[in-house]
C-alpha cells in the first residue's frame, strides 16, 4: 500500500540552526500539508501546498518557515533559525486532490521528531 515517508525520523539541532525536514508524498497526490504536534498537545496545521504555491497557512507558519518541492518527489519544510519552542513532532500529509467538492483523505507520514537544544 502506498504511504507517505518522512526523513529523518529524529533530528536534534542547536538553537539558531537551520533544519530541513523531508517528506516523500504518495506518488499521484497533488496536495501537501505540514502539521506539528508539540509533546502532549494537539496536532496543529501549519501549511498547505499545491501547484508549487502555498494554498493556506496558519499563524504559526511565520517567516522562519518555508516549504518547497525541490524536485518531483520531495516536499520539504525548512525552519531557518530554530527556537526551543520549535521542538515538536512534524507530520507531512498528502491528498490526491483538494477543495470542498468532496472529502479527500489526508494520508499522514510517521513524522519527524525535532529536538532543539
Amino acid at each position, binding site marked *: 500500500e502506498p504511504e*507517505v515517508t518522512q526523513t529523518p525520523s529524529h533530528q536534534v539541532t542547536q538553537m539558531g540552526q537551520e533544519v530541513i525536514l523531508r517528506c516523500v508524498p504518495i506518488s499521484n497526490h497533488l*496536495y501537501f*500539508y505540514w*502539521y506539528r504536534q508539540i509533546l502532549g*498537545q*494537539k*496536532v*496543529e*496545521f501549519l501549511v*498547505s501546498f*499545491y501547484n508549487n504555491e502555498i*494554498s*493556506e497557512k*496558519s499563524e504559526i507558519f511565520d517567516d522562519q518557515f518555508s516549504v518547497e518541492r525541490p524536485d518531483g518527489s520531495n516536499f520539504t519544510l525548512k525552519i531557518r533559525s530554530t527556537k526551543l519552542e520549535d521542538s515538536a*513532532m512534524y*507530520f507531512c*500529509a498528502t491528498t490526491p486532490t*483538494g*477543495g*470542498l467538492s468532496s*472529502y479527500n*483523505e*489526508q*494520508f*499522514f*507520514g*510517521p*513524522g519527524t*521528531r525535532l529536538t532543539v537544544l
Partner: protein
Amino acid sequence: QKEVEQDPGPLSVPEGAIVSLNCTYSNSAFQYFMWYRQYSRKGPELLMYTYSSGNKEDGRFTAQVDKSSKYISLFIRDSQPSDSATYLCAILSGGFKTIFGAGTRLFVKA
C-alpha cells in the same frame, strides 16, 4: 471559544465495553467531520469521516454528527485492547486546513 474541543481523558474501559468519544465545535459552517486514531509516536490515521449531519457505520465504529448542537461522536462497540490509542476528532476548515481536537487517550483493559 476554541474551534474544536475534546476531553483529553484518559478513558479506561474493560474489553468488550462500548466506548463513547465526543467533541464539540464552534463554527456551524463546518461540513466535514473526521475521526483519526493515533498510536504513540505515529502519525494520525483516518478512521472515518462524515459529511454534514447523520450517522456512519464501519464495522465496530459508528460516527455521529449533530449539527444542531455542534456535537460529534465516535462509538466503538466490543472494544479490544488493540483499540487502545489516542482518538482525535477533526474538522475540515475550508478546502485545505484540518483542525484537530486535543485527542482522547483510550485504554482498553484485557
